[in-house]
């Protein structure tokens, strides 16, 4: 076991992990931040996307120890400081951007990363950026609509 320390959603955290502990398991099991979902655990589905140093990554395909000293943002860090929904989250709610909700944390994190890189994406750019996020309810139309609304609201 080794100690890992990182900043998660603005707070410094540390925990005891094994070399093989995935970042997704660390945030869920050590930090109880269960908003990050593990869908496929094979880096296909994108439900586990978090930001590491402002870049979207699949947390099931990165070891917790590799995030030592990094700044990590999970879906729990996307709300406003007063607890109300952040811009992207609110846009998903307003546009029915979720059905069962399982993929939603990853969708929101990917959407936020896209809007950071490209504040006014076209529909094609949004769909391309979501290549690594799978919605098994097939609710893509409203997810795209939500991201367009979030871009317009920002």
């Amino acid at each position: 076991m080794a100690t890992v320390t990182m900043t998660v959603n603005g707070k410094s955290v540390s925990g005891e992990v094994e070399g093989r502990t995935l970042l997704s398991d660390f945030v869920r099991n050590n930090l109880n931040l269960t908003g990050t979902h593990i869908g496929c655990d094979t880096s296909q589905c994108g439900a586990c996307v978090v930001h590491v140093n402002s870049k979207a990554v699949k947390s099931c395909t990165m070891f917790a120890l590799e995030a030592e000293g990094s700044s990590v943002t999970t879906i729990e860090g996307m709300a406003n400081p007063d607890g109300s929904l952040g811009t992207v989250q609110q846009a998903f709610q307003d546009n029915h951007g979720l059905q069962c909700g399982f993929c939603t944390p990853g969708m929101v994190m990917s959407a936020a990363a896209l809007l950071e890189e490209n504040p006014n994406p076209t529909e094609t750019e949004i769909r391309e950026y979501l290549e690594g996020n799978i919605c098994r309810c097939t609710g893509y139309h409203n997810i795209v609509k939500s991201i367009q609304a979030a871009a317009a609201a920002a």
Partner: protein
Amino acid sequence: MYDFALQRPQSLNEAIEALSAEGAQALAGGQTLIPTLKNRLASPDVLVSIGGLSELQGVSETDGTVSIKAGTTHGVVAATVESYPALASLAGNIGDPAVRNRGTIGGSLANNDPSACYPAAALASNASITTNKRTISASDFFAGLFETTLDEGELITQVDFPVPDAANYQKFDQPASRFALVGVFVAKYGNDVRVAVTGASEDGVFRWSEAESALAGNFSSSAIDGLEVDSEGMIEDIHGSKSYRASLVKVMTKRAVAAC
């Protein structure tokens, strides 16, 4: 996943020393290696994490050469390489955005997946692959399915691509994995044309020499109309037969030439 020790060296020298140990394996971006470990297709005793080493990060472009440090992610190559657009575009279409934020050029080349994109760019450009020990020409680097001429404990540190007069990469996506079902990279240096094919052969990336000869005399997509690719030795799987892949090699080569 089997248990292993994860080491995080703080410098390239420390990493190379750690990799000299029996059973040690380099961990760069982990986008292939971690799924491989989960499937128990590899079980190293020690993983040496090199993804965070600043000595292995960065792109520089000088005098017709693009030099990329081995730990540079696909996302950074896609966003920063200016003088070799075909290379930047190839990097920008590997996997998906989150994978591109972790996966590295050195990791892709060292793994030599038969369907990976970077080996095609390296072979078509005759890139120079520098390690902690030597510099290897791409022509001498790839040695078959998941095999390279790297020695045990040898680590890629930098890849230098000579910038061609014209180049294009055409990838026929396998839509689930985002790997190339077939990908063809065409690069033209004066009258010398190199055509590198990934995704097709059971021996991994290869050069289609007949097409290269035909294109050297007449650099147009019609120059290869009369050629056929032998389906012997092509990959056959649920996604495509040998003859389908052989046919795609020609189609993608024609598209790449036309787009140059």
